[in-house]
């Protein structure tokens, strides 16, 4: 009997705790929502103040400084672009080579075109790569 009553009280406290938690969670959510709605203009103003006035220093905006700061994150993007270009180039080269081999029938002009194409591409890639290192 005694053990049953303690079990009951344990269950009821557990249920009230869960109810309390859920109620407080919904209350908290609604409170956050109200707070967010009420404070949105203020936050926007703060965001504007922080980004436009502090980061970009709009009152004293200098495009060269801005571009120099911006360029810090540029090399990573350019390296990714370089990789993408390499992949596209390889695909297109395979397509061209396929056409030249299949329909060119070992023609000397086709062989010459292949050599010129690959040599020219190598030079362009060397320039691209060296400029990427210099950035």
């Amino acid at each position: 009997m005694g053990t049953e009553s303690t079990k009951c009280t344990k269950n009821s406290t557990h249920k009230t705790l869960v109810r309390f938690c859920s109620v407080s969670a919904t209350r908290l959510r609604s409170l956050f929502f109200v707070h967010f709605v009420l404070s949105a203009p203020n936050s926007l103003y703060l965001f504007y103040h922080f980004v436009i006035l502090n980061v970009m220093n709009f009152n004293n905006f200098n495009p060269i400084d801005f571009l120099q700061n911006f360029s810090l994150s540029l090399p990573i993007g350019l390296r990714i672009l370089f990789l993408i270009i390499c992949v596209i180039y390889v695909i297109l080269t395979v397509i061209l080579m396929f056409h030249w081999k299949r329909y060119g029938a070992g023609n000397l002009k086709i062989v010459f075109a292949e050599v010129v194409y690959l040599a020219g591409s190598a030079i362009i890639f060397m320039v691209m790569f060296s400029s990427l290192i210099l950035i």
Partner: protein
Amino acid sequence: MLNLEKDEKIILEVRKHWFIFIGNILGLFFGVALPIIAYFLALNFAPDEVLKIILNYKAISLYVYSVWVLILWVSFFIQWTNYYLDVWFVTEKRIIDIDQKGIFHRDISNLRFDKIQDVTVEVNGFIATLLNFGDIHVQTAAEDSSEFSMKGAKNPEHVKKIIFAQHNKEAENK
């Protein structure tokens, strides 16, 4: 890939004139030259602030330009492939017309000499007359009376002569 019969030999390869090809790739040459022209114009005429930015970003400019040149370089070879693989093979028995319309679009058709009704050559304009290129139309005796044609073919009169000669030879053999 060209599938010739055992005793078949190619007499003539007919392609479009190089002038037609140059006309197709003229835009690419402008594309290569334009940034260089713009760069030199900017060096001479741009305000100091813009000039500073340009000089600060020489490496990036070179990178972007080389990407641009690579695009044009590959486009040039795609154009050249379309030009070079668009060809007529005149053999002892037939004309094989390979129509390379794009890198993934290729039509191949054959025309036996006994099916040929007429060959017309059209040279139109000062440059075409000077450089000796024009359109060749070969009319067939097929039911749908379809026409083989190549625009801007090199030396069209010579091509016509050879087609007629082969046509006559075929008629004599029969």
